[in-house]
């Protein structure tokens, strides 16, 4: 394990970004989000980002291809540029788990090559949590926030950032920057362990840490689907889509065409199952009411996805939706209301 003083982090970032793109939490106009590191950027590793880290692999808007039309002829132009490797720094355990969840969507047959290219080229440097928020409930999904995986795992404790490579990619990155680091000793490791222990204690006491998900099993699909409580839960929902856009695992997208000045660009962009026109097609809409759309989101995360993915929930308990819902309705409340008797 290596270590670097926190006040030297900017040197580390400068070094990494001199050869590859570095994406990390940056504060712009008061809000922290993952963004490209540039000289003078206000890096902030102490708060949870507003949006999740999924942008790096599944951007909010992404060009798929271009078309040129002339008369009756159509030409398809592949706009995919060769993806260069990049470093995604400061990913928390919950967001890291979200990549695994997204992988099960985008990397299963047929593979989404746009996602795959970025996923392969991204070096993920995770950061262990030491100060969870009240909205966090990653532990409910079996995530250890104090010990995230990734190509490199980092810990911040006592004025130092500790660095531990886990994979070949991580080792390669480490080789490139190791001049800036010092070797950590057992004393340091003890400090980290101490911190992990404290953090775990807090985690276990968080209000939503122990929400009972046991009621959400694929075999109860229809029963859950028809639960009468969806109505009261969805009543206040504005259908705004904030939750889906800050969510690390929401992966619904739309494919749209944009007419440029000399052709058509086809791009995909995030969409939200909360939107009224999400399922609207020429011949009608299969989810006409907000109740259906609201139910879809939570059923997908808690039942449909697990049903297709060996019981893995498509929620990581990051709590972003808990914080950002304009009317304070969220997945934790849904789980508590519908999920089972242990939640009272």
């Amino acid at each position, binding site marked *: 394990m290596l270590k670097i003083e926190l006040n030297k982090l900017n040197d580390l970032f400068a070094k990494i970004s001199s050869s590859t793109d570095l994406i990390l939490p940056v504060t712009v106009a008061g809000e922290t989000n993952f963004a490209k590191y540039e000289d003078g950027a206000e890096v902030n590793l102490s708060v949870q980002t507003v949006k999740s880290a999924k942008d790096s692999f599944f951007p909010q808007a992404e060009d798929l291809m271009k078309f040129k039309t002339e008369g009756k002829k159509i030409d398809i132009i592949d706009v995919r540029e060769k993806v260069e490797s990049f470093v995604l720094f400061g990913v928390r355990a919950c967001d890291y788990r979200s990549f695994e969840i997204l992988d099960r969507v985008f990397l299963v047959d047929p593979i989404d090559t746009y996602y795959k290219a970025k996923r392969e080229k991204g070096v993920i440097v995770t950061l262990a949590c030491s100060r969870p928020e009240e909205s966090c409930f990653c532990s409910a999904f079996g995530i250890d926030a104090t010990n995230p995986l990734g190509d490199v795992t980092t810990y911040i404790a006592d004025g130092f950032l500790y660095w531990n490579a886990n994979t070949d990619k991580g080792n390669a990155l480490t080789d490139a920057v190791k001049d800036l680091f010092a070797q950590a000793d057992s004393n340091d490791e003890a400090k980290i362990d101490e911190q992990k222990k404290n953090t775990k204690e807090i985690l276990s006491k968080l209000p939503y840490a122990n929400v009972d998900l046991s009621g959400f099993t694929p075999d109860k699909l229809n029963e859950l689907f028809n639960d009468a409580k969806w109505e009261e839960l969805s009543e206040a929902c504005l259908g705004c889509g904030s939750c889906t856009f800050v969510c690390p695992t929401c992966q619904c997208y739309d494919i749209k065409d944009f007419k*440029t*000045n000399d052709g058509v*660009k086809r791009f995909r962009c995030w969409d939200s199952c909360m939107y009224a026109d999400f399922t609207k097609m020429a011949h009608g809409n299969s989810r006409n009411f907000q109740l259906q759309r609201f139910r879809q989101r939570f059923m997908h995360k808690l039942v449909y996805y697990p049903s297709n993915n060996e019981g893995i929930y498509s929620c990581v308990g990051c709590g972003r939706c808990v914080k950002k819902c304009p009317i304070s309705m969220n997945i934790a409340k849904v789980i508590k209301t519908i999920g089972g008797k242990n939640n009272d």
Partner: protein
Amino acid sequence: MQEINKEYQPLIVAFCCNWCSYAGADLAGSSRLSYPANVKIIRVPCSCRVNPMFILKAFQRGADGVIMCGCHPGDCHYTTGNYYARRRMTLLFDMLDYLGIEKERTRVEWVSAAEGVKFSNVMNEFAAKICELGENKRLEDLRCKE
């Protein structure tokens, strides 16, 4: 600097109401009063048909300046259309300015059917102003230029 300006041909979209300003443009034409070729006129029935979305759309698509022309207040073919248009544009232009978009890029002129000279003068003047400002960078959509 001169060189650059010669090269640079600002694109100007002019929304003209059918009854006065479009006729004014026709009069400019029949009086052979020239104005830059990059002024492109879009005919609307009345200035009140001009939706702020059209103006933003023009900027998005690469216009460097947008001008709306209508009948003089009080002379609207539909009696009151240009009064509504005037309020809408006042507020819209103010908002664009507030967001930091150069105020000189937008303009409203009242041009009657008899004001061919005014039409041509206004267009020449406006184009010159936009030339000074250079390309529209603050309201551009990079995708359109690809």
